[in-house]
């Protein structure tokens, strides 16, 4: 049933209140005596006025207008929407973690420091790197940290002419955006007809101005870069470094490690691989791992262990400094830590094995109906092209809307850019065979619907709380806040 939901502001009634506070128990001075009138707010603060029950009903209704992993299958490619274990949430809410102040003395934070230390050790083993910082608050933040480290490394050697970063065309948008933020120039590397980095094209551009290559492996096409050893060699021989975008780490845990592939810097997305919830857009976490020669440049502080005492180490004279006000998203790290500790080595390997098995199974079911541009074993995800369907009148975006009507969250659409009408599908290991079968059947039904009446599919969805929303209008005539009429 279609309907809009009233905004908080439209529900507000003057005189209602949703809070209760103790009265002020210190002697109260007239405000004027503390803050002169000229420094006080003169405009009304027109926040909504609501009782507690109205606040709760409002947000409860909003939650019913939202789809999460707990609602159903969420094969959003590149995002690793696996189940978010409930114990992780309990862990982060423990008062001994949730109510800690970042400036409290180290001796009062030994448990937190121990957790950070243990987490670092596990990440080192999982990736084959030598040290980690847990400070970056998301994947993109990790990318920026990583490029800063690479920059600091080159600069420390007086190697100042390296002003370019190489990126394959299939890369995620954050990669080129990060390159610019770090003051570098982007050099795009094409893919070959297997969907992999074009090694010859790479060799043709790599030179003494190359600072680094940023690579996602498996790539955003879900394909493992088989030439990784040769790629690493080409970059290293030219004096460049290799950066690993770990968004797709879920494919390879226990099978191979970026550190062993030759990567010098790695970021992980703990809100993907380590099952921490995405929160409707965040918070996430983007720990960055490095090889030995980059350790001196890591952000301060690092966590050290001595005689079973844990401490923050700020004594890193070559450190790039800080990239977050404090230690990053500690609360998210707790959740990821809980996940890692409960999975263990075998569980993690099984998770990657099942993620890859699920993806290949679904790919095999779907390629009967949809065009699969790169038909070979995939890793944790694969990319279909809805180009044929688009010609019939309903493209990738329309197929996505049709899935909404049938209770599934759609795949990522129109990314990676190198596949026209891309549908990027990542089932993850936490889905059952029955779910995959049902999804495949639904995708077949949608293909039939397109054959029958593409026009109808192109105007969906039909069963959602609102119909297809006009994004063009939103951008042309931006209404970015509510205003009193």
């Amino acid at each position: 049933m279609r309907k809009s939901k009233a905004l908080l502001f439209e529900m507000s009634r003057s005189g209602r209140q949703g809070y209760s506070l103790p009265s002020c128990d210190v002697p109260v001075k007239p405000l004027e005596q503390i803050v002169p009138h000229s420094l006080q707010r003169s405009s009304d603060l027109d926040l909504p006025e609501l009782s507690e029950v109205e606040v709760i009903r409002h947000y409860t209704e909003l939650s019913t207008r939202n789809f999460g992993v707990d609602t159903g299958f969420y094969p959003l490619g590149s995002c690793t929407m696996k189940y978010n274990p409930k114990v992780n949430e309990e862990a982060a809410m423990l008062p001994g973690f949730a109510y800690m102040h970042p400036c409290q003395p180290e001796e009062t934070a030994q448990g937190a420091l121990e957790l950070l230390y243990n987490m670092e050790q596990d990440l080192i083993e999982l990736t084959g790197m030598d040290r980690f910082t847990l400070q970056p608050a998301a994947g993109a933040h990790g990318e920026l940290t990583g490029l800063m480290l690479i920059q600091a490394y080159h600069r420390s050697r007086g190697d100042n002419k390296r002003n370019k970063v190489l990126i394959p065309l299939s890369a995620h948008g954050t990669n080129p955006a990060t390159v610019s933020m770090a003051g570098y120039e982007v050099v795009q590397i094409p893919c070959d007809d297997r969907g992999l980095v074009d090694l010859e094209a790479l060799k043709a551009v790599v030179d003494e101005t190359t600072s680094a290559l940023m690579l996602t492996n498996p790539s955003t096409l879900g394909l493992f870069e088989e030439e990784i050893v040769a790629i690493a060699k080409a970059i290293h021989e030219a004096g460049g470094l290799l950066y690993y975008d770990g968004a797709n780490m879920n494919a390879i845990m226990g099978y191979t490690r970026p550190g062993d592939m030759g990567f010098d810097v790695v970021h992980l997305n703990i809100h993907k691989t380590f099952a921490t919830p995405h929160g409707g857009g965040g918070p996430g976490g983007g720990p960055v791992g490095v090889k030995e020669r980059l350790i001196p440049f890591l952000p301060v502080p690092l966590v050290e262990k001595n005689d079973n005492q844990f401490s923050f180490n700020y004594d890193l004279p070559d450190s790039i400094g800080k990239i977050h006000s404090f230690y990053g998203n500690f609360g998210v790290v707790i959740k990821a830590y809980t996940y890692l500790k409960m999975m263990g080595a075998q569980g993690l390997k099984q998770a990657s094995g099942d993620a890859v098995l699920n993806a290949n199974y679904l790919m095999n079911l779907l390629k009967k109906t949809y065009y699969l541009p790169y038909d070979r074993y995939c890793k944790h995800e694969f990319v279909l092209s809805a180009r044929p369907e688009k010609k019939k009148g309903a493209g990738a975006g329309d197929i996505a809307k049709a899935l909404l009507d049938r209770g599934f969250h759609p795949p990522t659409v129109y990314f990676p850019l190198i596949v026209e009408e891309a549908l990027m599908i990542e089932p993850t290991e936490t889905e059952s065979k029955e779910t995959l079968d049902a999804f495949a059947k639904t995708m077949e039904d949608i293909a039939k619907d397109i054959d029958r009446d593409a026009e109808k599919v192109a105007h969906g969805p039909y069963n959602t709380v609102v119909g297809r929303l006009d994004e063009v209008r939103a951008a042309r005539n931006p209404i970015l806040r509510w205003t009193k009429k």
Partner: protein
Amino acid sequence: MSGKHYLPLTDEDRHKMLATIGADTVEDLFSDIPDAVRLKGELNLPPAMSELEMLRHLDALAAKNKHFLNCVSFMGAGIYDHFIPSVIKHVTSRSEFYTSYTPYQPEVSQGVLQSIFEYQTMICQLTGMDVSNASMYDGGTAVTEGAVMGCGATRRSRVLVSQSVSPYYRAVIKNYFHSRGLTLDEIPLKDGCTDRGKLEEMLDDDVATVVMQQPNFFGMVENMSGIADLVHSHKALLLVSADPISLALLQTPAEYGADIVVGEGQCLGVPASFGGPVLGIMAAREKFVRQMPGRIVGETVDSEGNRGFVLTLQTREQHIRREKAASNICSNEALVALAASVYLATMGPQGMREVAEQCLQKANYAKEKITSLNGYSLAFPGINFKEFAVTVPGDPAVLNRKLLEKNILGGVELGPLYPGFKNTMLFAFTEKRTREEIDTLVGELEGWK
């Protein structure tokens, strides 16, 4: 096998699926990984734990920490022990919210999208700005990206930052600017506030953004009158990092002419969590919206004219503009912004005003009491909102250790943050602190040395 409760495939499923694929074993699916880089043997990780064992382990770790529930905290410096109403956790624990991704499919994400639209509105109401984004990582990255945004909007590359801006934030700005090749100059302090004379001297027509904080890092309310005019006379922008709680009581940045407002939103109903996840607030005047980083939600209609919400103005963002994007930010702090929204909706205008007034009254009560003690003096004279800097008669670390014996988390030491402020500490007072707690602190300080 460990982790099995998160892995629904049975061995029988696996066999059937492999048959469909035409592979013999799962290992075959990994045959594209060259032998040279394959992991031989198993990862060397400690044995996996069951849920019960894990909870015991976590409890044991958590028990080693002091925190706001087993101590009385007077720590601030950007992260505060404000009261958090129960409703917040209940809303943010709705898994339709917390297990969703960024709302790329608006028709099934109206919950998150509307909540962000409401958040943006309330941030505008607090700050007086016209537009807000959906969040940044934290206060430090919000200040930094705001300063960079000013460079984009003015096509200049030099930024002035007052030393009264949080040193935690300045550390982040410094790092981003160094990497990107932007110029950063610091405006010195005068009596704990921005030295206006120096600001005037340093301002030039190459300055993009002037960065200030209100109340500043020492809890002092800076005199902002005339600053915006001065900054604007050089066609530079004024960026202010504001404490959102203080905005219920103090002049809004819009009222004194700021162009960009950022801040740390942890004080809005968010657990301190050892400094993260917290909330980067970012708002601005309308004309700068195209330079703004991050997600922005806008109102629109569906095919039948029903109101709905979508991510908008996306041509600023990395997934569309790639290397030309305003920022690389992708994931932000959406769930924390949701918590802040629930807080603001729950507190309403009176609640916010009451919290702000109690902070002000309690801090000023403590200020009088502490500075009248022998050996203690106010580091800087002036107007304080919810915290103030005190010079103490000895090593602050030693004092804090003594306070801890009474389960008091004392003040933040300024020495490591400001060379020359060796015996100075910053004490913060929220609405949660009672007269009794403050008097106890005063008594402990009095008895020291």
